[in-house]
């Protein structure tokens, strides 16, 4: 693998200095200069934080980002250099977030129930018309809690695909590449996850309609 990476990396040189620098650092790390890995951490810390922040709650970002870099180090010899290191690292970050939710699912964490405040918030959203009104509602605490509640009802797979495809706006192909799953699997999951979210929200709305009657 190392030899393969060494052969692939020069292809990037001259095109993107940063990428060739990455390859040089990786070569040194694989040769035993472990401390050089700190340079990769400094370079991609923000990128990894950005990805993990989209998938896990902000109080768990540091922990998950930590795991991402340790995982990247342990798998460094499998980095072929065919794609930029940043892209390779993004895949590891997304898969680490997936593992985080898989392990959380096993713990059977209770999902907090919604209150009348959330129902009132939904009422405001439903009467909103302008972009400003939507943005105003998005800034409210209830909005984040409702999103947390809805995602908490999904499996780790559906949650991740829904976040990547419907919330982050990745294409199905890109999401499949990041997750290391087949295109059809991501397509099916994206559809199912969207349907599940719709059903969840519809149930809430119907409950709300029943209580206001």
């Amino acid at each position: 693998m190392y030899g393969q990476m060494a052969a692939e990396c020069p292809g990037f040189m001259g095109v993107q200095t940063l990428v060739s620098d990455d390859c040089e650092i990786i070569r040194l790390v694989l040769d035993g200069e472990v401390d050089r890995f700190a340079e990769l951490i400094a370079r991609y810390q923000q990128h990894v934080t950005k990805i993990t922040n989209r998938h896990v709650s902000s109080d768990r970002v540091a922990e998950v980002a930590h795991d991402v870099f340790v995982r990247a180090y342990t798998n460094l010899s499998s980095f072929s250099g065919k794609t930029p290191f940043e892209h390779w690292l993004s895949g590891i970050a997304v898969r680490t977030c997936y593992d985080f939710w898989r392990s959380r699912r096993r713990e059977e964490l209770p999902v907090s129930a919604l209150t009348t405040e959330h129902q009132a918030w939904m009422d405001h959203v439903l009467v909103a018309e302008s972009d400003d009104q939507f943005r105003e509602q998005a800034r409210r605490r209830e909005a984040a809690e409702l999103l947390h509640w809805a995602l908490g009802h999904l499996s780790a797979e559906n949650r991740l695909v829904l976040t990547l495809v419907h919330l982050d706006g990745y294409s199905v192909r890109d999401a499949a590449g990041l997750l290391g799953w087949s295109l059809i699997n991501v397509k099916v999951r994206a559809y199912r996850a969207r349907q599940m979210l719709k059903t969840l929200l519809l149930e809430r709305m119907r409950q709300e309609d029943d209580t206001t009657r």
Partner: protein
Amino acid sequence: MTRRDNERIGKVARVLAEVHRARHEPSLGADWSLRVMRAIRLEAAGQGSLRTALRLDRLVWRTATVAAVLALVFTGSVLLYTTGDAVELTALMSSEFDATGSLVE
């Protein structure tokens, strides 16, 4: 699902997507990268000892193979060259004689 339902869900989903995009990025703290590097050094040390253990493991198995071959060769040669002696020895052991008898009758 009616058209009205779809419209209502669309509105809520739109705001939820907005919430997701506007997520505040947390700061990881000053010693976060130091902690990561500490974990990586531990991992590197672990990998090093694992590599040594694997090498030792391979050496043990190779030695075991050589030892087994040598044992077979030794057993074979013993069986081959000591057949006559073994017969004599068996005869000696089976014949009744008084080893403790006096030398002079």
